[in-house]
């Protein structure tokens, strides 16, 4: 740079930008975390209330007048949940309700009305969830539904009798208090202090690059870490308060239900009110002791976990801010900015396309590759990537499993889900298709190239039709023609007195159907390419050859084949890739039948993702496919460059 050094100014801007970015990110993450804690506390209190009411209803026998008066007694002492309903699935009956709407002729007990189907559906969902979780012995489907209804929460949980779900208990909370926004004073301090301090230091240090850099980093890092530490301890205090609130709600509900129960002459106190504090799967959270006071050890653990997570996030944000500082401070942005300015026009022209490609091609690709290092599947889609990270295990499973012939009882059999089987099948598929395409296409092109052949344009148009038709339609047509009972092909076979073939029952015949379909649609490409090359051969060459007394075979070898080569080589290269990736034909014609034996790599990857729901594994599978294509592409590039040179 010929310009006079302006390190101080540049670093001051860098410090300002870094501090702004860092402070904003920190504030965002911290208020997110704090809102999460607040929401969770509200939800836990509501769940405690729901569980308390459920236990009361269950003690009252689950139906009849006893339930209705118990619910009424409970309601009169529970202002935090202004309405509750008990629904029995066996009679599609609203058993008890304290909702203002359910008065007069709508008062419980009554049959559910048509417009109240959502309540019925909810009960069905919850019953099914409990059933599933019991069968799988695994908490997968939420047994307590918590849904926001405006500023309120609407909760529903199962009502059980003798271990079976007979209905649901539903409550709606009073409007929840809005979360208090975090204060701005700490934020402003974290923003202004580093700038002011660095300004002072810069004045003292003068135009020296390294000391300025060190001072800038220290200023920003110190202020951010101070802000982060304050936020973490603030969050811990908030969690403490939240736990106490929940404990208080438990004690309150214990009293309320006891009073309501004794008034009805029911067995009095609930066994362990502390166990009302459960998650969506009705598994106790364990943050409270059975009698309903805060369990300090478990709370400390929970606080610790949250703090660790928050600290990790904040470290990331801080690193980002420091990276910005370094980029600006060291002048990388200046460079980029200058380049942007100098080539403004070029970047303007490519910006829309690049933006689209980044968002919808390169980002998804990166995301997909990241997914390939995880155990992502249907059951853990909500989890963070770091929780399901399994490193290279998917790749090891895919590439390390060579046992595609397995020995079982009853002899050995091929494991069709094995990667190497599918790879082998894909290679056989590609080679045989390209061979068929080239052979048929070349022969037809030679025939069509005959001089003065009558009807030539008509033949040409008809023979090109398969290429013109959308290939998914071709696939479905052939699928229909190979139908075992009604398909035309079996009719022809039977016409000649042979029994009908059930094509999709054996791997070999299934493969033949896909081969026939793909052969049918791929020969025109080769034909057109070869025909173009043949027509560009000058007639004089053959003339000269004939004068020299060459036979037709010699002419073919010496003139025709060499002239075809430059056109056919790229055509073969590209049709290898097409066939390798020919998703539609395999997916729609054989569908991998029988038993995944006729899947090619791309359809197999698709099935792993969308039929077996192993997203991480499928992503690794696809990445391997990408690797294969990349290697092929590089080799192809080398070869074609070598042939050009």
């Amino acid at each position, binding site marked *: 740079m010929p310009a006079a050094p302006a390190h101080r100014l540049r670093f001051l801007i860098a410090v300002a930008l870094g501090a702004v970015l860092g402070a904003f990110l920190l504030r965002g993450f911290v208020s997110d975390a704090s809102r999460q804690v607040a929401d969770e506390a509200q939800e836990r209190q509501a769940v405690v209330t729901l569980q308390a009411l459920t236990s009361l209803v269950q003690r009252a026998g689950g139906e009849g007048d006893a339930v209705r008066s118990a619910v009424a007694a409970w309601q009169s002492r529970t202002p935090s949940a202004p309405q509750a309903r008990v629904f029995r699935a066996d009679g599609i009956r609203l058993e008890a309700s304290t909702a203002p709407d359910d008065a007069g002729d709508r008062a419980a007990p009554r049959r559910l009305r048509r417009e109240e189907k959502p309540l019925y559906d909810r009960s069905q969902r919850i019953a099914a969830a409990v059933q599933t979780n019991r069968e799988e012995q695994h908490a997968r489907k939420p047994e307590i539904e918590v849904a926001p209804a405006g500023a309120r929460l609407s909760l529903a949980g199962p009502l059980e009798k003798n271990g079976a779900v007979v209905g649901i208990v539903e409550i709606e909370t009073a409007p929840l208090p809005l979360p208090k926004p975090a204060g701005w004073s700490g934020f402003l301090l974290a923003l202004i202090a580093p700038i002011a301090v660095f300004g002072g230091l810069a004045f003292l240090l003068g135009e020296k690059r390294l000391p300025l850099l060190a001072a800038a980093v220290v200023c920003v890092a110190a202020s951010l870490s101070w802000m982060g530490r304050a936020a973490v301890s603030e969050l811990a205090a908030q969690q403490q308060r939240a736990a106490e609130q929940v404990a208080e709600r438990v004690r309150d509900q214990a009293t309320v239900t006891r009073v309501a129960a004794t008034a009805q002459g029911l067995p009095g106190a609930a066994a362990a009110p502390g166990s009302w504090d459960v998650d969506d799967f009705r598994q106790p959270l364990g943050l409270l002791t059975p009698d309903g006071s805060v369990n300090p050890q478990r709370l400390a653990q929970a606080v610790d976990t949250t703090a660790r997570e928050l600290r990790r996030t904040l470290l990331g944000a801080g690193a980002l801010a420091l990276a910005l500082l370094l980029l600006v401070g060291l002048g990388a942005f200046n460079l980029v900015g200058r380049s942007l300015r100098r080539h403004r026009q070029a970047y303007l022209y490519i910006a829309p396309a690049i933006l689209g490609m980044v968002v*919808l091609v390169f980002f998804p690709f990166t995301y997909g590759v990241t997914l390939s290092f995880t155990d992502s599947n249907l059951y853990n889609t909500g989890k963070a990537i770091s929780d399901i990270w399994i490193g290279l295990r998917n790749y090891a499973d895919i590439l390390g499993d060579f046992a595609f012939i397995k020995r079982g009882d009853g002899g050995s059999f091929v494991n069709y889900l094995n990667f190497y089987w599918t790879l082998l099948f894909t290679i056989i598929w590609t080679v045989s298709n390209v061979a068929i395409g080239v052979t048929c296409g070349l022969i037809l092109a030679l025939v069509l190239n*005959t*001089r003065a052949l009558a009807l030539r344009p008509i033949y040409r148009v008809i023979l090109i039709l398969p*290429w*013109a038709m959308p290939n998914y339609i071709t696939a479905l*047509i052939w699928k229909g023609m190979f139908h075992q009972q009604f398909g035309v092909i079996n009719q022809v076979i039977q016409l000649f007195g042979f029994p009908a073939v059930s094509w999709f029952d054996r791997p070999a015949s299934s493969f033949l159907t896909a081969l026939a379909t793909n052969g049918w649609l791929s020969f025109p490409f080769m034909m057109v390419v070869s025909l173009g090359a043949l027509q560009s051969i000058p007639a004089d060459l053959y003339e000269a050859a004939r004068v020299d007394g060459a036979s037709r075979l010699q002419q073919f070898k010496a003139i025709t084949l060499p002239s075809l080569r430059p056109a056919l080589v790229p055509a073969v290269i590209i049709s290898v890739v097409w066939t390798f990736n020919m998703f*539609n034909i395999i997916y729609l014609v054989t569908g991998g039948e029988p038993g995944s034996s006729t899947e090619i790599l791309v359809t197999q990857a698709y099935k792993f993702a969308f039929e077996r729901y192993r997203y991480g594994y499928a992503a690794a599978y696809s990445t391997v496919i990408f690797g294969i294509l990349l290697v092929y592409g590089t080799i192809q590039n080398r070869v074609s460059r070598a042939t050009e040179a």
Partner: protein
Amino acid sequence: MPRSRISEEFPHGPLHAMLAVAVLVTIYPVLWVFSIAFSGKQSLAIADLPPTPTAGDRLRAVVPWPEKLSVSNFTSVMSDQPFARWMLNSALVAIFTTLLGVFLACTAAYAFSRFKFPGRRVGMMAFLVSQMFPGTLMLIPLYIIIVQLFGLGSSRIGLIIVYATTSIPFSVWMLKGYFDTIPKELEEAAVIEGASAGKIFWSIVLPLAKPAVAITALFSFMTAWNEFILAATFMDKENMYTAPVGLRFFVGGFSQQWGYFAAGSIIVSIPVVLLFLYLQKYLVSGLTAGGVKG
């Protein structure tokens, strides 16, 4: 016109016989679709067989001519089934994909062809490599971005955006090749006369590149019109299906409405087949030059 004489002395009779066989194999599935479509029935058999069919019955079931001619499959697929709606979805998606895709590709290809700037080589390489990204790797992230992030599930806009961007690399390579052949002197002259870069692009370069732009546009259109997997993944609601997804719906799973499928296939195929026959000579040169696109 120069023409080879390799088969000059060949008698034409056997050649015609060979071509006749090839034509029969080629055209039979097409005729089959037509006979199912005009049969007025949903069965995939051309003729119903008696319980103990004779050779004559079997022959009848193979000849691609319906037992009874009827256009009822065409009328009811358009009126009773939501097929007209699916066609509309496909047409809108394909048209807007073409407009957006060609616009994005033209500007980018022009920059790649005319300007020297840092990142030019990397950009072209990245476009080329992106052609090898397997669709199955992109599907899940794309689904998350389009459906969960942008909320564009079962929407034509979502599909248009995805089709348009994924068609960019191929179109850019094709257009850049053509832009490279347009002499720079024309633009230099315009610069001397004081035209702005935008004006040069819109009123000099684009009109000159009309043939290439047209080919790219038609190609984008056909790709969007024929695409099946992404549409099947994104379009959940039945009334938002595109024509390919709808046709699969007729005969996929346990559904066996072959009459509707055949009639619909004919309606869907006619425009693209005509376009294709018109375009094919450009396609060959473009495809073999364009690299490893599937």
